């Protein structure tokens, strides 16, 4: 299932950034931080204004034709052969794992496969392609990591984000024993099965809070919207941020 990416032969000089619709509307600061991190590493970062959504919501609901139409708009928006960096394991998984399936037997199947092979999840790219080294300039803080299901099980990302967090000298990472359990977001699942989703996020909050961390860091804004929204509603808000924002704020290039 997981289609682990391979490191490009040469370090690219230009990359595309696919912000994702959720980041675009609700967490633009996370997307911007991802772009700044890449830029700081000396890359030219291109953000095509023609980009919209990866198509996952429609695909997951069975509306494949509608999804393909939207995906084709992304093919048009990212014409150059540059790597496409995505600050979300879920959207990256859609693009890398599911585009080839979604276009199997379609006239543009080859284009879908070529596009998919250029897709990288941000933290993976930072670790394996850029070998990012950071110097911590922040105050001591204890954080916990929330891993998204699709980053783990579709993109094959296991330790990369935690490795980046551990590399910061003033950051203590407390791992969540239930890290691998879904937070209950699941896109339309959260509104089609609201009570099951609510039970899942309640348990997720309890396990996040039990780590004693003062902040939760994650690589997927869908999960974050779910978890932090539920924490806020329950009146026990804990700060939560996208990994890119956290790294940009704390880490100076070493």
């Amino acid at each position, binding site marked *: *299932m997981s289609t682990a990416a391979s490191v490009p032969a040469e370090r690219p000089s230009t990359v595309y*950034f696919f*912000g994702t*619709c959720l980041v*675009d*509307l*609700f967490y*633009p*600061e996370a997307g*911007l931080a991802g*772009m700044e991190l890449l830029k700081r590493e000396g890359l*030219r*970062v*291109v*953000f*095509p*204004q023609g*980009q*919209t*959504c990866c198509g996952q919501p*429609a695909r*997951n*609901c*069975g*509306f*494949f*034709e*509608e999804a393909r*139409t*939207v995906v084709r*708009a992304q093919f048009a*928006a990212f014409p150059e052969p540059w790597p496409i960096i995505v600050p979300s394991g879920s959207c990256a998984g859609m693009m890398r794992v599911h585009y080839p*399936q979604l276009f199997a037997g379609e006239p543009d199947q080859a284009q879908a496969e070529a596009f998919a092979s250029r897709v990288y999840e941000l933290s993976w790219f930072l670790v394996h392609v850029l070998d990012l080294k950071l110097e911590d300039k922040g105050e001591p803080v204890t954080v916990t990591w929330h891993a998204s*299901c*699709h980053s783990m*099980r579709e993109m094959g990302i296991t330790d990369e984000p935690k490795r980046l967090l551990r590399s910061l000298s003033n950051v203590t990472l407390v791992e969540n024993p239930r890290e*691998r*359990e*879904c937070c209950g*977001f*699941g*896109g*339309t*699942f959260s*509104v*089609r*099965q*609201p*009570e*099951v989703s*609510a*039970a*899942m*996020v*309640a348990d997720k909050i309890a396990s996040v809070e039990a780590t004693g961390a003062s902040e939760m860091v994650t690589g997927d804004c869908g999960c974050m*919207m779910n978890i932090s*929204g*539920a924490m*806020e*509603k329950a009146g026990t808000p804990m700060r939560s941020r996208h990994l890119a924002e956290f790294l940009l704020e704390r880490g100076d290039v070493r």
Partner: protein
Amino acid sequence: MSAELKTAAHVTNHGNGHVTVTNFAGRAHVALNDKPLRANFRRAMDGLMAKRAAQFPDAGDLAKLRARGAAIKERALARLPELLEQLEARCTENGIKVHWAETTGEANRIVLDIFQGHGVRTVVKGKSMVSEEMHLNAFLGEHGIEAVESDLGEYIIQLAGEMPSHIVMPCIHKNKMQIGQLFAEHIEGQRYTEDVDELTAAARRVMRARFAEADAGISGVNFAVAETGTLVLVENEGNGRMSTTLPPLHVAVMGIEKLVETMADIPPLLALLPRSATGQPITTYVNMITSPRKPGEKDGPQEIHLVLLDNGRTRVYADLELRETLRCIRCGACMNHCPVYARVGGHTYDAVYPGPIGKILTPQIAGLDVAEDLPHASSLCNACVEVCPVKIPIADILVRLRRESVRPSASQAVKGGGSGWTLSEASAWTGWKWLNAHPLLYRMGTGVLSALGHLIPPSMPPLKAWTSVRTKPKFAAQTLHQLARDKGFDDE
């Protein structure tokens, strides 16, 4: 989106202690409010996950073994029609009588005919999911034949008059207090106790008498070997062996997909099944049945029958993507690792096969028109896909079934395809498509949302469901598109 309205919990409280529910969300509502049930499942699933993990310490070895398990089942399925004929020929040579049933009704009739022909009055049963699919106990009961479950878990739920809530551990939803009460009520001379050893001993006492007096035994089949005509049956209590050797007549029921090509295929599957299921290196009993008692042998039944059940499987088989469902070896690892199953339990699925495998199997066997909400009762987290010992792409098949329910394939691969289509949902996705396929429209739309999104009332569907336990997401004042342009990031 109408989806929210369609899947809202359908719960009617009749006020006299009776509550009727008609869909997954409704049954989930009841289960989620049952504290002991939730605690039972959570504890049990946590334990099972830990035990399985301990059995597979090396990720590389596990990956190889799973690939092998998947390949064995795939190879067998690729030749299924000829292998079934081979199995029938070998079994017949070995003295096992083979019967074919297209429907569960036919299968029940076949079993009844065999029993009536032998004057059978009481039957002991080893655990069999296919017999659950047939609702065989009830059918036999209607015809004056008493079938007693001999698997402890199955026996407990038979006493309670319930369905299995798990395919391997059928009474996992009950704790020892509940079982203690059940035994005190139903077993003569048994006092209430929470002592597990005493409870087990009580069941054993009942069972021993049953084994001795039974006119026939019924069992399922874990694997059937086409090459040799051997029926392989794994179990932990010895009841499977007793049910298939003590009574003079043994009837085995199996789904047609349980075939493997050769005996050499069995060890890798045995290395996967108990470890994935219960976290055991091997089951206490592995039974291999190849023929009835031969002249001069001291034990075994005089007669063995094998009933091969289709019940929609050839329809599933016809579609190459859906066919992967038939690789299943019924280990239950998918449900043990499912975050939805762990919270709502097996009965919420209202089907013989609960959990992730049930979510893809039930709609294919029963039809999407009766189980349309099952493929949607998943967050697509892929935990099941990660642990499946034969690598069934459950999440992809869930999405395929969601597709069949709104836009059926030309081949009409699944019964009841199209039954989930609604004008409102289809229109919503058409609108979504227009907005996201036209970048200019998208930027205008998202710009408007950034400026005015805070005015959307949280009571509007589907936000209403979202905000029941979460705050409304806050639209940022500026989109990333706007910020990227302002900060001077190139557009091409």
